[in-house]
């Protein structure tokens, strides 16, 4: 079983469209893990059935028991996040502002403050219309993606893949360069970097590749909208060469990307031309590259 992670650093590069196409091409041999929890859009293309749903708890927030509280205000005084305002003559925790440091609970003379596990969302195991199993999650407002949630989604995907002898796990990776993307990458056999030839695209590609390198993961790159700026595309190609990143494909600026999405289809189901061919070839290449790493 091989774990393939698709990441991009920057939003809007077509990462999710590419990932969903791979899921289509891989079919029942694939378990999909959507770890881009902040902007989880893949479900719009693959139509999961939410067969199994569980609550997800992450982090803690303070809660004041008003019956034990003597309103001394020590808690509000030590709180650096202004998270304990007085509401109706009672010190009350504003959960949205609480960082969960627990300082207030430690200094409360009445032991009136408890740190409560926070239910921040749900995670799901689904069957998709593409015959994949998919593990995904939805977070509530103000809740942040975390290494923990990504690990949870990936572990579940891995367990299912192992139990059913699946060949691949395809991970729609988290954005940025923080803890969630570290967790997305950890344990992967191959990373597909999706980028676009813009000043911000190449900037973010370099940043995210730093991480991939640190984890000794073999990587390949797909340049989307490659024809929009030939100069930057050449600059990207030079970067790939100097860093020994496999060049997988260049995709054209093609409105079928959006048209497919609008119809709730993957690109390979919608397009019948060059774009489809390029993505099929990309998937074949990714399979081959991940097999030897």
């Amino acid at each position: 079983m091989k774990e393939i992670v698709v990441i991009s650093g920057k939003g809007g590069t077509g990462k999710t469209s590419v990932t969903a196409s791979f899921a289509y091409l891989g079919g029942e041999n694939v378990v999909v893990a959507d770890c881009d929890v902040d902007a989880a859009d893949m479900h719009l293309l693959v139509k999961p059935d939410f067969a199994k749903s569980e609550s997800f708890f992450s982090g803690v927030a303070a809660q004041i028991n008003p019956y034990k509280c003597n309103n001394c205000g020590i808690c509000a005084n030590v709180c650096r996040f202004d998270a304990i305002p007085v509401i109706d003559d009672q010190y009350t925790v504003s959960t949205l502002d609480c960082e969960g440091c627990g300082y207030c609970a430690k200094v409360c003379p009445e032991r009136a403050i408890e740190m409560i596990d926070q239910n921040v969302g749900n995670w799901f195991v689904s069957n998709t219309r593409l015959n994949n199993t998919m593990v995904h999650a939805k977070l509530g407002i103000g809740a942040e993606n975390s290494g923990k949630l990504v690990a949870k989604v990936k572990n579940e995907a891995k367990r299912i893949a192992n139990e059913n002898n699946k060949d691949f796990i395809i991970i729609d990776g988290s954005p940025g360069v923080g803890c969630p993307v570290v967790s997305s990458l950890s344990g992967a056999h191959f990373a597909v970097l999706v980028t676009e030839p813009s000043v911000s695209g190449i900037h973010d590609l370099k940043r995210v590749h730093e991480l991939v390198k640190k984890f000794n993961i073999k990587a390949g790159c797909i340049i989307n909208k490659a024809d929009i700026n030939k100069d930057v595309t050449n600059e990207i190609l030079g970067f790939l060469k100097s860093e020994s990143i496999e060049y997988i494909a260049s995709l054209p600026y093609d409105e079928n990307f959006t048209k497919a999405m609008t119809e709730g289809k993957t690109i390979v189901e919608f397009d019948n031309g060059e774009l489809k061919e390029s993505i099929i070839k990309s998937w074949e290449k990714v399979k081959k590259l991940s097999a030897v790493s």
Partner: protein
Amino acid sequence: MKIAIASGKGGTGKTTLSTNLAAFLSETEKVVLADLDVEEPNSGLFIHGNLIFEEEKYKMIPEWKEDSCTFCGECQKNCNFHAVIQLGSQILVFPELCHSCFACSELCPVNALPMIPKRMGQLKHFALNNFDFIESRLDIGQEQAVPLIAQTIDFIENNFTDQTIKIFDSPPGTSCPVIEATKDADFILLITEPTPFGLHDLSLAVETMQELKKPFAVIINRYGIGNDDVIDYCQKNGIPIVAKIPNLRKIAELYSKGDLIYNDVPEFKEELIKIRDFIKNEI
């Protein structure tokens, strides 16, 4: 007046709109643009002004004083973020994991962990003709955007008058950084694309704004692709649509080069005029 420009996810044209709107409004008004996407500030790639001021920004972290430490282990126990780790007779502090809650420091029985300022990033102030641009950038490896966003907003409050139009290019998403960047704004402009992804991410952003009880309106980018679902959604929920920026290859090309767009694309400028009128009349 403070206007935040936000979107549920990245890549919808937030930076393109912020930079062009700021430049356009500055032809008639006094404007300051702040890039609050401090993890990936990209506005600066499109704006070229003179650097007139820069300063380092700090957050408070504990510093271990070996001489006074008794290795009691309290600090490690009191840190909920694994930012303070004891290895035998060594205490290690991880600034990136620290939330500056002060618990380890103030609860240390022998004051062996005083809080000291530690650099987390940098703020830069660029001046253009009638237009100021503030960019804050988190250092690589720093994980907490919120303190830097808060300090950047403070900087703007302290250095610009109420008559200045303040435009905040907010970070993407629906989590703490975007809440920090929008919670003090007078009005939020949400930018989205007329696609299923765009609609889904817009609905998350709308939920967030409703939770914050903020007035907001929508701007559609790349209008002409996709379908009418975003428009239907806005109508059904009584959300004003201020402008529809057309989908033109020319815009994508100018963007990829890091150029401003409105002077070369009249269709784009027309939409900016609508946004300006909306700001003048409605906000």
